[in-house]
């Protein structure tokens, strides 16, 4: 231990405010960056899950009705 007491550790020989300001800003900003990255990932996964759930239920409706409500089958017709 380089200090005699906890108070001496906090005071850092008069340089306490400088040292602690650096460490607080460093850890605060790093945690914000990490949390932001994790939220981005969660948000992307949620969006993909919602999109997929939408696609799945749409598919199931078509199956359960036996027939789709709208028919997109291409009909070749002669126009001339």
């Amino acid at each position: 231990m380089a200090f005699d007491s906890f108070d001496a550790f906090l005071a850092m020989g008069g340089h306490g405010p400088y040292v602690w300001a650096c460490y607080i800003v460093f850890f605060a900003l790093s945690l914000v960056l990490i949390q932001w990255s994790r939220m981005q990932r969660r948000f992307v996964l949620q969006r993909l899950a919602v999109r997929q759930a939408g696609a799945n239920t749409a598919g199931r409706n078509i199956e359960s009705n036996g027939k789709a409500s709208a028919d997109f089958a291409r009909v070749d017709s002669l126009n001339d």
Partner: protein
Amino acid sequence: MWQFFHKLGSPKWFYDIASRLMPWLLWSGVALFMAGVIWGLAFAPPDYLQGNSYRIIFIHVPSAFLAQSVYIMMAVAATVTLVWRMKLADVFVKSAAPVGAVLTFLALFTGAVWGKPTWGTWWIWDARLTSMLILLFLYFGAIALGSAISDEKSSARAVAVLVLVGVVNIPIIKYSVEWWNTLHQPATFKLTEKPSMPADMWVPLLLAVLGLYLLFGWLACLRMQTEILVREGRTRWVRELVKPGGNP
């Protein structure tokens, strides 16, 4: 070798490897970094000239080290983007740029706060500080350019060119303390010489640097996975991953 190179370009392969690596990177990084910082803050002896204010070094040097290393890694990835058109390289550049910007800002901030009690000023327009500020703007430029171009391929190439042009700044940062007169002290670590500090100071510093490297690796993996999910959202393997019961 070439097979490995092509595998490396496959987003799915990278995603799986990253998932397996991430817990190791995170916890070894936290352990090394915290060990270095706690040792440095509480147990390392005070500096005979600067007293206890020098303890800022245990976060200042790792941030500054990583800020430049990340840029060099981005430049390597940019070369790969331009030469081999590898998508994963661009994923890295886009994911790492914000992390690099934050690290550069932290290096500048902790440097300024350290400068006040040591040099008597927060800021001075000397070579080392100015070239670090330019590095911050290069990161901002890469982020802004990347998000301004919506087409994936054009955006990848434009950012890669910008990153490669900016790499000239890195040797300027590195040698600024030797080429010009500056208030900044010379490098703490040199490959060719023993550190000019006692072991009680440089060992914790080295631990903090290594720990921050590992933590950067973890964060880069996390952010790259997110970027891959966005880009590959329509592929079969991502849909398998996202569906209930999958483990993304």
